[in-house]
């Protein structure tokens, strides 16, 4: 396959970036999208041009490190992570625009690499259950009804990639945050901190510069793990309960 790539190049956080056009030839449809970029980078290196910086690590769709806006869609045209997207999803001769996640809360570090540490700070604000090592009761001490366990699991599948933020017109981190609130809130162990957790996490989310949620659902549609939109209702419910009870 031969392709035209328009890639966002930006030398550093304070530089003004721009889209740069590259022609790539002889691309195999069996390559992953990131392997196609590897090929481009090898060719740039051979020409003495600096390679395009982009993040990836596990390349099996679970670590959450990769993430690109591909022709305007977070992670591209398939419902998967960028690393699991393959070139057979594109046409020979196609022009593909490749940009970093676009959100105020995710500042650009270089080229396609962004800083998602705001997600860590949201978790630090309460996305955990306080259980010191060694203090745990036997694992069978508190049975969990299967429907709750299953819903907790679905929410816990979030990989923290940030596609929800990138896809949202408001650049809201609501789906990410709600997935954690739902995961922990469905479990008996998560109850003691449930109200304090949601209030603290929402406050941090807003302070980090994420936008508000207007229930458009683009987040859930872009999510490579299919986190359902109804986790947002759970968060809103918990937040209302918490505020009403004076948290």
């Amino acid at each position, binding site marked *: 396959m031969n392709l035209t790539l328009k890639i966002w190049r930006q*030398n*550093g956080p304070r530089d003004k970036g721009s889209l740069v056009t590259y022609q790539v030839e002889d691309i*195999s449809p*069996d*390559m*992953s999208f*990131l*392997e*196609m970029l*590897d*090929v481009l980078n*090898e060719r740039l*290196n*051979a020409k*003495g041009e*600096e*390679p395009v*910086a982009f*993040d*990836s*690590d*596990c*390349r*099996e769709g*679970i*670590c*959450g490190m990769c993430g690109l806006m591909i022709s305007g869609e977070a992670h591209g045209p398939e419902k998967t992570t960028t690393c699991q997207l*393959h070139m*057979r999803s594109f046409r020979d001769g196609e022009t593909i625009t490749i940009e970093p996640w676009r959100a105020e809360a995710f500042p650009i*570090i*270089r080229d396609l*690499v962004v800083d*998602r*540490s705001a*997600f*860590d700070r949201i*978790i630090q*604000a309460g*996305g*955990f259950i*306080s*259980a010191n*090592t*060694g*203090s*745990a009761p036997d*694992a*069978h001490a508190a*049975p*969990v009804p*299967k429907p709750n*366990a299953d819903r*907790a*699991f679905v929410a*816990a599948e979030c990989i*923290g990639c940030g596609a929800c933020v990138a896809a949202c017109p408001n650049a809201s981190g609501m789906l990410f945050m709600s997935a954690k609130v739902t*995961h922990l809130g469905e*479990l008996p*162990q*998560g109850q003691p901190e449930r109200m304090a957790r949601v209030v603290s996490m929402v406050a941090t989310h807003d302070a980090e510069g994420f936008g508000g949620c207007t229930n458009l659902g683009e987040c859930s549609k872009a999510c490579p793990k299919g986190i359902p939109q109804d986790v947002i209702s759970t968060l809103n419910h918990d937040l209302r309960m918490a505020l009403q009870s004076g948290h």
Partner: protein
Amino acid sequence: MTDTLSTPTDTFGKWTIGEGIADTKAPGGPIDAKWTKRKFEAALVNPANRRKLSVIIVGTGLAGGAAAATLGEAGYHVKSFCFQDTPRRAHSIAAQGGINAAKNYKEDGDSVFRLFYDTVKGGDYRARETNVYRLAEVSANIIDQCVAQGVPFAREYGGLLDNRSFGGVQVSRTFYARGQTGQQLLIGAYQALERQVAAGTVEQFVRHEMLELIISGGRARGIIARDLVTGEIETHIADAVVLASGGYGNVFFLSTNAMGSNVTATWRAHRKGAYFGNPCYTQIHPTCIPVSGDHQSKLTLMSESLRNDGRIWVPKRREDCDKDPRQIAEEDRDYYLERIYPSFGNLVPRDIASRQAKNVCDEGRGVGPMVGDFRRGVYLDFADAIARMGKAAVEAKYGNLFDMYARITGENPYEVPMRIYPAVHYTMGGLWVDYDLQSSIPGLFVTGEANFSDHGANRLGASALMQGLADGYFVLPNTIRDYLAKGPFDKLDVDAADVAAARAEVQERTERLLSIQGERSVDSFHKELGNIMWEYCGMERTEEGLLKAIDLIRGLREEFWRNVRVLGSADTLNQSLEKAGRVADFLELGELMCIDALHRRESCGGHFRAESQTEDGEALRHDDQFAYVAAWEFTPEAADGIPGGGMGTPVLHKEDLTYEFIELKQRSYK
């Protein structure tokens, strides 16, 4: 028996033999009382003094994340480092199958002793009994801890935890969270860690890579790290250093490891005096998606549960290899595992399944695209299973794996047989540690896959997660306090001679890599190294091949420092520079792995020497000569152009393995 090994005293001039390791610091007494005794005898640190003691932890996977959270909770001052953008990306996240624990919730005869026994046997009797027993002993606590954190393990309708059997053992002791057990355990450890960051006990350094170990007064006292965003070379001083930086499978270039997984932290420590244990022990997993071309950047594992219903075959004739497999008649197919191993068939252990796949491909009977001179793939066929169980039942059992396969290969495995091939998955070797998980450098502790200790020559399924969390939550926090109780150590100034020298070495190395401006990219060196390792130090090793590999690696390393091209500068995010440093270390590690494989003139677990096999082609151990841990000491050698010097002749220190509680046997699969 086939045993055509050369004389055991010949070292080919590749290594020398040093003093043996007499004491691993395990306490005496019955095996089930040792850990309790050690915990009692380990000195305590008064809670008020803990905040004056600092610990650096490199890596945030299960072993590093759990240790950082636990030491933070205890009140120590922890600095946690990872090269990824957040601790939650560490490669523990990719583990699929499950985590073993001797809970005996199924009342099927499991016990701490049975888990201990299975693990020692599975490791082909090359693991240390005392450490493995402790691993089995704390396994049950891990499940309790993870459930308390909110890890959503699979549950039954009654609300209790579900178990499955795994990895060929006869009890159901594996806890799991669908096919994402590693992810869920890691997120649990990550959340515990972030809680401590919020509490101020842990300082978190992301996008930071450790590039050198600081040793002062004979103790590990800190690290030199590069801030990967700004390029700044930073100095971090502490009272103790923990390396939890994972395995080194990426020395093969293609493996199931993450792109960034590397050996740099442990190799830098090895260069500074930490012994490297059993570097040649590598696990090669049989059911991975094959290489599709030269562009391939990594390999993806599929659960080996597929072998329960899939049948493995290749064409009998080479000329059929490029045909549509559905057009190849039954009598023209070679179901080679069923043919060679009629009793175990497709369910032979991982090492055998992997090696036979290589053999049929070497004969020119592999399938799929040509990679180099050979097709590297065998069929895993579900046609019989679909005929027997129906498509719906196959889909219910394996649907997610079939989907993953279809997404990567673009083929529909319900219609066309899957193609699989073995891939490097895990490294049992690592830095040598004693019972306390302390390396041969005082104050340097090593946990998880980064150490060598618990899996011997072969790791059983669902045991890596267990070991990472055992080390991180329960073992290290109890043993490191005995060391920290001697501190705080003398204040070490960032301008002290030892510290400045370590920093200067990193700076020199970075500048050197950027100044070579040669002709070849870092990846081209990495791929060539990977090919050498895979060919000569992969599934089957021979004396001739290993000697050749050592020469090839030395030549490649020499060329690397003369001809690598790393563009860009040191003061920005520079991914080529990061890779270059990692590949430089792999180029040294690869040689040590080959030397270790050359010196071990026996087959055991994942280490198969063609010269040492039974008549059935199984691994033939030589317990009389090789029932020991090979702990290698680095010897520097002056070399032009390599900052910090080249790699001299390593020194072998043997730690004899004594089996007091388990009897040594030849593994049999009949």
